[in-house]
């Protein structure tokens, strides 16, 4: 029995193997003899291709029906636009009835004003008010257009050249609101993928600019140079030279939240070592620090070209509104087309620009006010601490 089966299987196998090797129909295609096994191989390839071309099984998707969407919309309850109003939200700030000078009137009483950032005492200055009156009579109040569309008035251009001349930089650019300066400048230069090393005690406007720029942000401890150095070291590990990546350090000269002064000479030394660009916000130090009020660079004796981008709001020492940014010609030109707070917004009212020019003139002619400011600061420190 088994031998018969063995015989049958061996003969079948023998027949198979001979038919595989026998040339089929004695055909020669392109110099290749068509053997029997070629047929099986072709069949196998066809089966593989067929299987590959079939889509894998996915459970069928059932989109929501209109009725189901209606039900979902019905039962959705939004949160209210504002949380419940608490006691502290209803507190009203004091209302001034006169100019915000060193003495002001609130509710009919004369009070000493320690709340306004009127560092040089230019609120109520006669010359500034006269230049504003002339400007108002000539130009009206508003400028009625953005800088690109007939909103550039010659006082704007005069103000820009005056500030650049005062600081010793090639050019400057005016913005129409103090805090919008820094949060338009940072996104104009820092794009997605760039690296920013920023102090963690910067104010809200700088934080907003950093958030809008979508770059990678590394914070270092407030005003701590060792922390800054380690942050710079960490971000440039491996490559000191930046070919495609832009790198920035963002600091404030005098920090709004803590009042500390940034050590600019240290920072400039670190920035040159690690090849970063420096963005410095001088809102609280322009017109205050330095022998003639030219800011932190003069205070430390650092040449102003070493700081790449300086921004400042003019709402503090210059007693007007608006802001400016200054630096090299490339820096300033770039902002004229890509800074959103400059391009998409109406320009500064012309009378505020003439107030800024008069304020800078006044500061340059009377450097003695800086001495009285410093005396007052020293007095407060001596009495208090």
């Amino acid at each position, binding site marked *: 029995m088994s031998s018969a089966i063995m015989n049958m299987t061996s003969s079948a196998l023998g027949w198979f193997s001979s038919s595989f090797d026998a040339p089929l129909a004695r055909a020669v295609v392109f110099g290749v003899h068509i053997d029997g096994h070629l047929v099986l191989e072709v069949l196998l390839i066809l089966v593989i291709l067929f299987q590959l071309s079939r889509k894998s099984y996915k459970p069928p998707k059932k989109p929501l029906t209109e009725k*189901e*969407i209606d039900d*979902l*919309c019905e039962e959705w309850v*939004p*949160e209210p*636009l*504002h949380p419940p*109003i608490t006691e502290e*939200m209803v507190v009203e*700030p*004091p*209302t*001034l*009835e006169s100019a*915000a000078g060193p003495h002001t009137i609130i509710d009919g009483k004369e009070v000493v004003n320690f*709340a*306004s950032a*009127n560092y040089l005492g230019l609120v109520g200055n006669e010359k*500034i008010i006269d230049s504003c*009156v002339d400007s*108002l*009579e*000539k*130009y*009206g109040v*508003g*400028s009625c*257009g953005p800088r690109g569309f*007939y909103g*550039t*008035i010659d006082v704007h*251009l005069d103000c820009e050249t005056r500030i650049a001349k005062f600081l010793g930089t090639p050019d400057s650019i005016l913005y129409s*609101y*103090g*805090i*919008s300066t820094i*949060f338009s400048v940072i996104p104009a230069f820092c794009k997605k993928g760039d690296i920013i090393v920023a102090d963690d005690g910067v*104010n*809200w406007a700088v934080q*907003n600019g950093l958030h*809008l720029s979508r770059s990678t942000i590394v914070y270092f401890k407030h005003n701590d140079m060792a922390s800054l150095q380690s942050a710079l070291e960490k971000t440039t590990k491996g490559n*000191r030279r930046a*070919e*495609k*990546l*832009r790198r920035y350090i963002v600091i404030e000269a005098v920090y709004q939240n803590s009042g500390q002064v940034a050590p600019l000479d240290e920072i400039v030394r670190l920035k040159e070592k690690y*090849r970063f*660009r420096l963005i410095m916000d001088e809102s609280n130090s322009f017109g205050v620090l330095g022998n003639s009020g030219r800011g932190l660079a003069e205070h430390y004796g650092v040449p102003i070209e070493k700081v790449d981008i300086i921004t400042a*709001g003019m709402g503090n020492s210059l*007693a*007007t509104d608006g802001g400016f940014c200054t630096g090299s010609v*490339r820096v300033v030109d*770039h902002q004229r*087309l890509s800074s*959103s707070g400059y391009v998409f*917004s*109406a320009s500064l009212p012309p*009378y*505020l620009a003439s107030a800024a020019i008069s304020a800078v003139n006044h500061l340059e002619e009377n450097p003695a006010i800086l001495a009285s400011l410093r005396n007052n600061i020293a007095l407060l420190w001596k009495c208090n601490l």
Partner: protein
Amino acid sequence: MVRLPYFTALTTLFSYGLLFAFGQMRDLFRKILDLPKSKKVQGYAPICLGLEDFYTRRLFLRAQDCFGRPIASAPDAWIDVVERYSNDNNKTLHRTSNITKCLNLGSYNYLGFAAADEYCTPRVIESLKQYSPGTCSVRVDGGTTKLHTELEELAARFVGKPAAILFGMGYVTNSAIIPALIAKGGLIISDSLNHNSIVNGARGSGATVRVFQHNTPSHLEEVLREQIAEGQPRTHRPWKKIIVIVEGIYSMEGELCKLPEIIAVCKKYKAYTYLDEAHSIGAIGKTGRGVCELLGVDPADVDIMMGTFTKSFGSCGGYIAASKEIIQYLKHTCPAHLYGTSMSPPAVQQVISAIKVILGEDGSNRGAQKLAQIRDNSNFFRAELHKMGFEVLGDEDSPVMPIMLYNPAKIPAFSRECLKQNVAVVTVAFPATPLLLARARICISASHSREDLMRGLEVLSKVGDLVGIKYFPVESENSHAEAKLKKLD
């Protein structure tokens, strides 16, 4: 809707292609010429790499003298444009001391308050002497004067809402308020052609942003249904709140938003509405109260109304008007209120006086006259431009009228020819508008007299023929009658 003739689309694309090719060639030559020069700043990446500022360097600089023209007078109906010259092919422009007096069809001076006004200016000068140009402080720290509280009440009353809050700049108003109202977990649905300040505010808030087709309430409904059903991305939890942001007049199209339909859709799906009336407040509506008055929408139906004082009131700054609770909450949390310098007191006084003139509370009817004047001027100008065959966008009563130019070469040609004939126009191209749809935007003011408008129309017609932008010439009735007579014969 913009009708773009097929032939014009082809020629415009071809022109842009040609400019792009030339620009690339010049870049190549610049790279070859710069190779031997050593790089001055070693180790610093350039501020703009490669193609990032290609458009600025190679396309925009060619026509730079058409933008940013300085003026030496108030931005009134007639302005003194300062002439500029360039020695290096428009890369740097220098001022001269020559000025040309031009008709101003570009400034946002809708009610004519830009120049010194007989009622407003004396009061502004008085407030300047009393409060000085800056307050040097933030609102919560001693920057609030009596003028600020007075303007907040007046603005709320003017717009028709219970309370309002002021800001020193219109751009900051949008960028700082939207993050205060909505955060991660919320949804913002904004119109596709919204202004850059709204886009920045939406991005800064951290909420998810979806866009609906411009001025299409049906698509808004579709987006709302889909989003509410799906929930937050990836987690599918329900949204915390939904805010829909639209504008009153879209400044690049000149058209009004379909406010009644959009409000109906939002009410049905319980979404909050935010209306940005930067261009429409004071300029449209019978008493100047904006797009709500014109389209018959009750201000109580819109949750938050925002506006700026730059355009119709001739000042600076912005406001938000909403219910008392929302304003109290915003005064407590909004960063622009807590950290931004308060608005300059003379500018506040200008707005107060301007609103009083518009409402007629100064004892004269100049306000009503101005409103009637701007409406007549806008409708007359638009009808005449249509008759001449220009492609003009915008709705009836809107003082903003864009004239389509399309081709990139026509933009500086139109602008320079008009300046030669003493008319100052504004031309807008990419990136403020789509690439193929460049336009010249005309803004009509109440201080334009009928003769000014006729002069403007005459110059526009001449320049339009010269430059070739009368894309849809209207057959005049005379030629129709002649053709009929010929047929009878």
